[in-house]
């Protein structure tokens, strides 16, 4: 009886999804997307109120927990945030115990000692990307840095330039900043991406106009981990004399980045993605040739007048220490993450009907995004309550909406719905990866056993040939 209900509900859910996959353009055409605010995308889909039918309760029966082990889930969501490194905390504690001066107080030793530490941190942050410390402006995080660059630069040059270019798979804070500029009368081109998640360089070059002010393309995508061709983009921007901003919240310190080699004019950085404290970040702003911008926050003129307000020395120093550790631990981290990622990929892609989303070659290893066909990603996440995972970016996974990033890659609703992102980092252990591979194998099988679509597929019925009408 129970199983029956499950089947029926599951059926309805999947059928609806299939129906709704009849090619909504979503973000496909920039023109069509112009009117809707991004955050409301697809609010009309009818599936939002349907709870994944099986629920964790049934699954728990199938997979009784071993009570000799702990209960806290394995953390595998490193793109959302990373644990603060104890060595970073050690640095930060000095500022909560003794060094409390205002770094902008220039008349006494309390100010000087804190300022010295802030400047040390600035140098560490700059070193990772081959920048000059004077080119680093501390902010509250990558969201603020993105807003600052994307709104600040076009506003400064608005008398002559009216156009900016970005991509459809950017983080929400970039897309919404761009949307904001449209309201102010700017033109925005949202470049599409290929199936591999990468932008087309020819298309970029064609999109550049005489009045283009800024190109903003991210380094590593937060959902699928693909690395955009920054060097080529930088070259195109330089040739056409437009500013190049890149959101490297996920790339900074994880892939080699040199702002001069890559011709980057501005780069957004976030501290909490590199084992630093939350609430801190930076914007790299090139000095030669100088990039000028209207500051968003005005006041006492701190940070070269670009970002007024007293800095938070504990956060800044923690961020600096995290950056220093990134350089120190680069090879050790990279090899570890690569080893675990390869193990995870091999382990999971050996399951039938699974797909690695995004380019297989141009990717950061620490982000593995896989679609498990014939399964609801959300049901799988519920079944996996012993592993902390996300089915996309932190901001979209709270809803049942499929990922706009996967849509931009051309994935249909069903596939976008069945995707899960695995984030591996410095503190992930091999034991955890083994556990995850085992758990996913078991539960994918379990959920597929419940899925009528899987049953049909096993019987050799071509799902695309079925007429669902009348349902």
């Amino acid at each position: 009886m129970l199983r029956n209900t499950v089947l029926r509900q599951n059926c309805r859910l999947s059928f609806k999804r299939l129906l709704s996959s009849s090619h909504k353009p979503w973000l496909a055409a920039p023109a069509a997307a112009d009117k809707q605010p991004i955050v409301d995308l697809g609010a009309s889909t009818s599936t939002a109120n349907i709870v994944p039918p099986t629920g964790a309760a049934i699954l728990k029966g199938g997979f009784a927990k071993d009570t000799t082990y702990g209960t806290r889930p394995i953390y595998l969501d490193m793109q959302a945030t990373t644990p603060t490194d104890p060595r970073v905390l050690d640095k930060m504690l000095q500022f909560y115990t003794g060094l409390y001066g205002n770094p902008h107080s220039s008349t006494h030793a309390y100010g000087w000692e804190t300022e010295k530490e802030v400047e040390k941190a600035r140098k560490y942050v700059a070193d990772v990307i081959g920048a000059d410390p004077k080119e680093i402006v501390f902010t509250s995080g990558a969201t603020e840095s993105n807003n600052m660059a994307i709104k600040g630069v076009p506003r400064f040059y608005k008398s002559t330039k009216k156009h900016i270019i970005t991509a459809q798979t950017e983080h929400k804070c970039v897309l919404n900043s761009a949307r904001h500029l449209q309201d102010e009368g700017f033109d925005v081109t949202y470049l599409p991406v290929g199936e591999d998640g990468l932008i087309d360089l020819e298309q970029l070059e064609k999109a550049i106009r005489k009045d283009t002010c800024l190109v903003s393309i991210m380094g590593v995508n937060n959902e699928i981990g693909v690395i955009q061709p920054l060097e080529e983009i930088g070259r195109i921007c330089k040739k056409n004399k437009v500013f190049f901003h890149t959101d490297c919240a996920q790339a900074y310190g994880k892939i080699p980045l040199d702002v001069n080699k890559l011709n980057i004019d501005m780069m957004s950085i976030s501290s909490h993605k590199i084992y630093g404290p939350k609430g801190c970040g930076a914007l790299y702003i090139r000095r030669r040739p100088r990039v000028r911008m209207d500051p968003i926050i005005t006041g006492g003129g701190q940070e070269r007048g670009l970002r007024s307000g007293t800095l938070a020395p504990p956060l800044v120093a923690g961020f600096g220490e995290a950056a220093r550790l990134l350089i120190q631990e680069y090879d050790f981290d990279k090899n570890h993450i690569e080893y675990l990622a390869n193990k995870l990929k091999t382990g999971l892609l050996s399951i039938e009907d699974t797909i690695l989303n995004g380019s297989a070659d141009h990717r950061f290893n620490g982000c593995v995004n896989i679609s498990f066909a014939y399964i609801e990603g959300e049901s799988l996440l519920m079944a996996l309550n012993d592993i902390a995972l996300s089915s996309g970016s932190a901001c979209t996974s709270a809803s049942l909406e499929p990922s706009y990033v996967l849509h931009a890659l051309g994935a249909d609703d069903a596939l976008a719905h069945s995707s899960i992102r695995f984030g591996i980092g410095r503190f992930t252990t091999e034991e955890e990866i083994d556990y995850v591979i085992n758990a996913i194998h078991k539960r994918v099988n379990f959920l597929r056993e419940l899925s009528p679509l899987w049953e049909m597929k096993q019987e050799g019925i071509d799902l695309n040939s079925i007429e669902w009408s009348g349902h």
Partner: protein
Amino acid sequence: MSSLSKSVSTLPSRTKVLGLYHNMLRSSLKFDNYNFREYFLRKTRYEFRKNMELTEEDKIIAAYNDAVKQFTVLKRQATISEMYHFDKTVVEPQGKVSGAEKN
């Protein structure tokens, strides 16, 4: 013990290096947090093994002094980790008692 927390200006003896190594392993083991504990164990082993191949005197001294600095941080942070307890994760045995029961 305390001499192991001091930097050196001449070549440290083998006993001294091994002493520091064991102390760092012991501090790593004290972390209550599973992921930090495993990381610092892995890292300490890796660093000392790598540095065993050093032959130049000043490089050995520099590596030793660097490890001394890391040890002081490790000691402090292991102590802090011991003061804040969180549930164990699903890959961690619940403690020695249940671990023994299991066998």
